[in-house]
């Protein structure tokens, strides 16, 4: 497999508050006048205490909520590097174009809750940490004792 490089730098535009995940696939890549057409309205709080928003897209009613990325994590918008040095047709080097600290995700027809995949996906971070944290001799002895 060809080498890939991803350059994660905390620079570029901060897109916090403007990153939306929709429950559909828009078959288009490129800029769109989102702020002129997509008008989320704050709409109270759910039973679980999540602040809710409401918006319409292509006639569908969407219900959404904004989720902060966990401490120590950032969202990155990447673009392929186009430096003359990597003039190879299929360069696999990526550069940071923008960053974000939250995602607003939208459901079609149901109220957002902590049971939604978007929230649950972040459980992986806790699991990954447990899996990848260095294990100390003390950890080992206590766990073998427990067994």
């Amino acid at each position, binding site marked *: 497999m060809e080498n*890939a490089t991803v350059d994660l730098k905390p620079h570029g535009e901060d897109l916090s508050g403007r990153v939306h995940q929709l*429950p559909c*696939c828009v078959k*288009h890549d490129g800029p769109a006048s989102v702020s*002129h*057409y997509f008008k989320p309205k704050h709409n109270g709080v759910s039973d679980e205490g999540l602040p809710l928003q409401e918006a319409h897209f292509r*006639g*569908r009613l969407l219900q959404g909520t904004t989720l902060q990325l966990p401490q120590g994590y950032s969202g990155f918008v990447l673009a392929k590097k186009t430096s003359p040095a990597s003039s190879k047709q299929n360069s696999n080097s990526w550069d940071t174009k923008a960053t974000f600290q939250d995602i607003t995700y939208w459901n079609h027809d149901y109220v957002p809750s902590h049971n939604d995949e978007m929230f649950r996906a972040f459980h992986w971070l806790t699991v990954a940490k447990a899996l990848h944290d260095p294990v100390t001799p003390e950890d080992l002895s206590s766990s073998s004792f427990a067994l």
Partner: protein
Amino acid sequence: MGSKILPQWASKPCAMGIDEAGRGPVLGPMVYGCLYCAQSYMKTLATLSFADSKTLKEEKREELFETLKTNESIGWAVDVIDPRELSAKMLKKNKINLNEISHDSAMGLVDRVLKMGVLLTEVYIDTVGDPGKYEMKLSKNFPSIKFVVAKKADSLYPVVSGASIVAKVTRDRALREWVLDETAENMQRNFGSGYPGDPKTKDWLEDHKHHIFGFPTLVRFSWGTCNSYFKDVAQVLWESDNLDEDGGGGSNSNGKRQLKLSNVGFFSTSKRRSEEVESSGKGRCRFFQARKLEHLTNF
């Protein structure tokens, strides 16, 4: 909107007419209006030259609406259904068709007037769908009222003609004063009547379609008319449409038409694949599947 003070005559047996405006148009709100009065006033009502609102000129309708508002022997109310609500309901995962929305609106008006304390004994209403079934539905919900469901009720019963003026004038005003949600430049307000055949409406739709967003939210996306404008706009695939194909669709009596409506918003020739809409975590352990976390080695 409607009469607020409960008049003296409301405790005597009253009759009410219900009619709709803006059911056919591809844009703007649909309005249900009602007009009620004491049974003893019905004869006088017939002399007030209310006719089916469609046969009257706009100025005449406006004038009649203003007179009936000041008439203390008449009460009225309207239910304005926003085009965003119409689109959203008709494009839900379990789609609600326009007839159901209409029935609910009419029954909502009956309920509202009853709750005000008006002694309704008779309600006249233009039919939506089969008159017999509609009458049964209404009588079941309001057993104390005698319902007269008829085709062209608006030209047969003055109390319905009055209701049609209330509805039509409210719809026209709502459209005239409509504030577009969208803030893009070059948004015009010359929508015409909103009927799909109106050349002004056609031009407006053509000028206001958007490659990503389809149309401004004034437009009822669930109308078949929209499809003809969507041939060259970006295709949008929805999770809910994938569900439909798995047989999870509604148990709607109008199933066939509703299925077609689910295609609104994209030009459907290619086969839809759920993977295009969302990641799946397919083939991974349950922890990842349940969270739709896919393993990505390349992007």
